[in-house]
Every structure is written in C-alpha cells, then in structure tokens.
C-alpha cells in the first residue's frame, strides 16, 4: 500500500519537474554531452530520472562507483585537478574539509541552493559543494525486547551508562565503520572534553564493539537474532525494515529510535576541478537537487532530501524518526582532530 502511494508521489514529482524543466529548457543550448558521476556504492536513483535528464537537457549520465565514501574521496583527492569524472556525489561533512583543502572541487553551488533547508547550507566548503541529502545516525531500539522484559526504553545517551542497561548496546569501531565514526563524533559534540570519560563508562557498562554496521545490525542486534537490543544505526532504519521486509510487509516496524544524541550526516555534490565539461557538470548538480531526484532520495537511499518541502513517502512520515536537535561538529574541527580522537578512543576502549 505504502509503496503504491510513494509511486504516485514519485510520478507527481517527476511529472512536475518535467513541466518545470520543459519551461526552462528553451533558453539553454547545450549540445549532447556525457557527464560522469563519481559516487559511492550506496548511491541509488530511479532509472526513469536519468532518462528524464537525457530528455530534458540532452545529458547522458554515466555513473561510476568507487567503493565506500572514504575510498571514493581518497581516490578523488589523489586525482585532484585531473579527475576521473565530472561530478562527485556522496562526500559527507566528516570528509569535506580534506577534499576542499586538496582543491578537489571547482567553485560552484547549485542555482537551486535557495530551496535547501537553511541549516544544511551553513557549510558549503566556501562555495564548492551543494547539500543533496541528510541523515541521522542514532541508537536503534528493539522494542519487543524491552516490552518483553518490562524495562523502560532508554531516552538519552546518559542512560546508556546506567546499570539498568548493562550489556545491551552494540556500537561499531569508528575506525572501520561510518555510523561508528558518526556515533563517536556525536559523543564528542555532546560531552566535549568529557567524551573520553563517557566512553570509559560505556566500556564498564559492557558496550560491545563490532567491526562493521553489517556485523552489528545483522548479527548482534537482538531484532535480527543477536543478543543486544540497542544498536548504533540510522534514524531511517525502522522504515527501511518495512520496505525491505518479506511480503506481506508488516504494518509497523519492530524497532524504534533513541532521538537523543543523533549525529547528522549531510551528503554533498560538487563539480570536480579539471572537468572538461564544466557547464553540463553544473547541470547535473542542479538535477540532483531537482524536485524529481529529491523526491526519489528517501526510498532509494533511505536519507532525507535536502530540498525543503519535498513530499516524503508515507513509510517515512510514519516511521522515520524526526530528530529535532541533531548533533554536529564543524567539518574543519573534525579534520583537525580526527586522528587524535581515534587514537584516544582506541586507548579508552583497548582496541
């Protein structure tokens, strides 16, 4: 049912963007061009939108993926100025400064930037990247586990160190996992200089550290057969549980989200410095922020669209946690301190 509704929403969004594009395209006179989009393995967009881009602007979009976001940025930094692609999508706020310092991007932000939710555009790397989507990393809760034991679900990060929740939380190693890193940054943003002590308390309270999100979520999380009812994951994991469930889909997810201590990840797109296709590349960044792609983002990648007032699918409005006060650190702070933070975390956790 929800998928039917979302399809309708998508069709409306696509056709309205088609109309808009049809109105605007008469003034442009770009010839046929191929733009290569460099992105990470998790990138997904509906094929119909790529066909749409071709019809509207004559641009053929080629997608190349380069491992996870870290590998992708590493490759882009090494190839700065002589890029393998024209546009990069999927760099987040933890890695942004590295890429900006290495002059990976040329100066450009989308003409649609005005439509972006205000707090997301605070940092555009001095006008080189455009925010496309965002998501929050939060502790997820196996509701059934807590109901069965008549134990109240935790409501704050502080509570996770209390004896009532001993041996219940599984996190990921920040050195090997993106949500693991985000959760560590969340504790730094929340506790400041005291963050090391917080982790000492977590450690004493039996926190388990997994190497990867997959290992933590698919194996250790009690909702999936493990023995830990609290796991670091995403605010959109509950709706994803529904979308990727077996038919017939359950009517509501069996997991929920601890809305305190969530870390916000913003994903950006930018034109790569050295592209031979500057103008067409810019159009692709605009396209990523167009109403059509933005409406596609939730069900494709399980993140929230950066464009304000984008209609969300029902499964999102019903089950995705809305985080009113997400935690965030300045990209430049992360860049300057990450190495030390990681080794401090390693010392505290004995890893």
């Amino acid at each position, binding site marked *: 049912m929800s998928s039917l509704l979302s399809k309708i929403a998508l069709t409306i969004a696509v056709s309205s963007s088609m109309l808009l594009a049809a109105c605007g395209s008469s003034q442009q006179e770009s010839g046929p061009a191929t733009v290569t989009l*460099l992105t990470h393995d998790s990138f997904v967009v509906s094929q119909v939108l790529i066909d749409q881009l071709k019809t509207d602007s004559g641009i053929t979009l080629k997608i190349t993926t380069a491992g996870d976001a*870290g*590998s992708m940025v590493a*490759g882009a930094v*090494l190839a700065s100025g002589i890029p393998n692609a024209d546009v990069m999508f999927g760099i987040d706020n933890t890695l942004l400064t590295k890429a900006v310092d290495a002059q990976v991007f040329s100066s450009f932000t989308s003409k649609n930037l005005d439509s972006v939710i205000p707090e997301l555009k605070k940092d555009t790397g001095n006008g080189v990247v455009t925010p496309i989507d965002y998501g929050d990393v939060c502790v997820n809760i196996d509701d059934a586990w807590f109901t069965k034991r008549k134990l109240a679900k935790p409501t704050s990060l502080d509570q996770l160190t209390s004896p009532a929740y001993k041996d219940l939380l599984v996190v990921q190693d920040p050195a090997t996992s993106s949500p693991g890193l985000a959760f560590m940054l969340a504790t730094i943003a929340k506790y400041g200089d005291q963050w090391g002590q917080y982790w000492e308390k977590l450690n004493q309270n039996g926190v388990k550290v997994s190497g990867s999100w997959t290992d933590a979520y698919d194996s250790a999380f009690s909702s999936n057969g493990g023995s830990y009812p609290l796991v670091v994951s*995403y605010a959109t994991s509950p709706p994803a549980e529904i979308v*990727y469930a*077996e038919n017939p889909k359950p009517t509501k997810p069996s997991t929920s989200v601890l809305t305190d201590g969530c870390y916000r990840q913003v994903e950006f797109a930018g034109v790569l410095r050295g592209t031979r296709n500057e103008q067409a590349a810019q159009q692709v960044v605009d396209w990523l922020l167009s109403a059509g792609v933005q409406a596609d983002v939730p069900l494709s990648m399980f993140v929230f669209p950066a464009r304000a007032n984008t209609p969300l699918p029902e499964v999102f409005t019903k089950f995705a946690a809305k985080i009113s006060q997400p935690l965030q650190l300045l990209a430049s702070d992360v860049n300057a301190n990450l190495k030390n933070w990681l080794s401090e975390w390693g010392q505290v956790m004995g890893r």
Partner: protein
Amino acid sequence: MIPALFLITLLGVPLTNVFQRSFEAGTSFDLSPQLSIAFSAAGQALVSTLLATCIGLPIAGVLATHSFKGRAFTQALVTVPFVLPTVVIALAFRELLGSALAPGFLLVVIAHTYINLAVIVRIVGATWQQLDPRKVTVARSLGASPIRAFMTVTFPELRAAISSAASVVFVFCFTSLGVVLVLGNSSTRTLESQILRETSLLLDFPTAAITALLQLALVSCVLLLGARTSLKRTSAVSTLRFTRLRPASSKAQRSYVFVIATIACSLVLLPLLSLAYASLHNSAGWTLEWWSSLASVDSGTTRLGSPLAAIGTSLRYALLTGVVAGIVGVGAAIGVLTHRLGRAVALIALAPLGISAATLGLGLMLAYGRPPLDLRSSDVLIPIAHSIVAVPLVIAVVLPTLLATDKRFAIAASSLGASPTRAFFTAYGPILRIVMIAAGGLAACVSLGEFGAASFLTRSSDPTVPVQIVRLLQRPGEQSFGVACALAMVLVLGTIALVAGIDALGKKRWVR
C-alpha cells in the same frame, strides 16, 4: 619477457603513481605503531599457517593419491572457502560460532585456517599427484610404517611445494583485511587494515604509503625465504609417467580415506550450511522468497541489474582472469626455469601478494583511469586487478610442479637434435597442460571472490557478485539479508561446479 612487461605496466606504473602523489607533501614519520601491528600480525599469521598446513596436508594427500566416490566433489568443496568473499565467510562464522566466541584472535585464526586450507590442498596436491607411488609401496613393503614412509619418502619430495604453499598462506593471513575487520579486535590488526584506515578515513597518504612499503618489504622477505626453499630442485628423480588415482587397497586405507574426506567435507560444509539455512529462512520459518527475488530486487534503479545479473558479470571477469593470469603465471614460471633473470621475474610476480589491495586499486585508477589511457570505461581494470592478485597463486601452483619434473628429458631431447624450444616442450609440455588448466581455474576462482582491490576501482557496469552481496548486507531489512545469503549460496554452488568442471577437464587430459 611478456610476464615481466605485464607486471611492469600493470604493477610498477600504478604504484609509482600512488607513491609519487603520496609523497608530494613531505612529512616525518613515526613507524612504531606500524611495527607493533606487524609483530602481532606475524604471530597471528604463523599460527594460522601452521593450522592450515597441519589440517591441509592429510586432505591433500588423500585427494592426490586415491580415487573414491565423491573425490571431485570433495576437492571442489575444499576450494570454495578460498573463493568466497571474506564478508560472507565472516558472516557464516558469526552465525555458527558468534555466540560461543567473541571477536578476536581465535576467531580470526579459525577463519584464516578455513579460507587457506584450499591453498595448501591445491598447491601441495598438484605436486603430490605426480609423485611416484611405487616408492611408498617399496618403503612400506620393506616394513616402514605409513608415517615413516611419509617422512622418509613423500615429505622430502613435497618440501618445496609445502614451503611454497605455506609462505603464500602466511602472506595471505599477514595481509588479511576482511576477516580481521569483522572477526578481529585490537590484537588482530594487520598492516593492511592500518593502510585502509590511513587512506579512506584519515586520508593521510604519506603515512599510508610508508605503511604499504613496509608491508611490501616484510612480505618480500617471507616470500624470499619461501622461494629459497622451494627453488632448490628436489634431488629425487621423478618420472614423467603420472600416477593414476588408485582406489584404497586395504581396509585400513579405505577407512583412512573415508575419515579424512568426511572431516574435510564437514569442516568446509558446517559454516556453509549455516549460510544455506539463513538463505531459506525468515523470522517466521522456512521460505523460498529470498531465492525467488534474486532476479527482481532493485529493478528499475541505478543499482544496475539484479543480483542475478551480477552472476553473469562475475563469470565474465572470472573467465578473462583465468586466461590472462594463467598465461602470465605459467609464462613467468617457465621464465624461472629457462631464463637467467627468471628468478627475479618470479619474485617480482609474487609481489602483488604483499601490495595492499587499497594501494593497488588506487594506483590502477590513477594510472589508467584517465586520459591518455582511460581504461575505466571499458571495465578491463577489474579483470586486470584480479589477474595481478591471481598471478602469484598461479606461479605457486606451477613452479613446484615444473621443478619436480625431470630435466633430463629436455637434455635427452636436445642431444637428439631438438631445438631448445622443442626440447623444452617435449619435456614439460604434458605437465604444462594439466598445470595450466589447474592454475587458470584457480585464477578464475580468485576473480569470483575478489573484493578488496576491485572495490576501490571505479566501475560503470554491473557490480560483481561479492560487491552485490556487500551492498545488500549494508542495508537493513530481512529481505536484504536473506537475498544476500541466497546470492552467497549461488556463489558457493557456482564455485563448486566450476572447480569440479576444471578438475574433470584436467583429469581427462592426463589419464591417457
């Protein structure tokens, strides 16, 4: 010469690119964390290698000398763990042992042993098949116990193959990535995982390059040691008449074969069965849904193609890799025998074992991923990366066998007036055919399961099966997990079929 050229262009150029770019910003280094990681990784690798060798040798012996029902199946099955993506193996072990064992040293060693059993069985087995069984028979008839016969007759002839195989296994465990990420803890870090952390997380390229060089140096030392032993021509004279597999002759022998084969199969099958169970099960009970949605998941999106399409892609790369790595590897091995500089080439060709997948992937992309030579769009970079990874294994399979072949055939042929080439092929031709099929098959298997280097390469077409599995595992939902397990099972079954097919092909040729 061709292998040398292949390696220089596809290994030398990319690495130069990475190191050049990495060192553009000069920094000072503190190598103490790297050294302590190297030390603990060496301990872990040593234990893993010892275990894999001790368990692998009896299996290799039974498979190489006896014919029995299910032999081809057993041989294929033992190869499977080596080919499966480490993520899948790690997952299977978690399903099996996760509740009993916490991530750490023991779990890593068990997984490494499991994966590398195939290296011992196949490399040592390739030589073992060609030993003259009559010698053991003679020793036994003179009153030697089976163990004594093995120690005095068989073992000396196998020493080259064993040290070759063991050094390869050691290097695999020393440079392991996927297993230590998922099943390890702080005590099981490797330089490879350190390099990954330095490149993709800290983007600290100079330090990563230094770490990569350190790893390369250490691995080269190990391989040199292994090569010193394995390049010594075994004194035993072997004949060109290959042994046919023989059925067990006595009751004791029959039960020995039965016990070893059963142990081998159950060792390999146990984790795989937990995977199969997961692919046929959901929270409610038994289901076929995961298998039936193999073709349909993610259609209509840019997750190009369904999981089913990934199988086609993987097979294509595997075939290419088998051919390329087979030719290059066997060429390099021939070079060692015939050319003055051959040994140097062979050692260089073993180097990819020690070059981190991350470094290799980044290097290939830098060197060939942009004009003037943009190979990225043609998608040949992936089979190239796979070939580079597979060539050392091919050499490890081929070289001991060639060295064990009687050189006097070539001498006899030349003295009868044959040209050097003709003499070479008269002596080594029959063996080369068998060995090339075995080696090409192994390379194809490496390609099927390879994830490390390939994951760093940009790709524009369908993902391979391992990449697709990892993508599925990286999102929530019962369906993602179930389909990933089903896809992993397809890889398992496909590998068993491929390996059994290659083995059958090889056997047909040499049992004349």
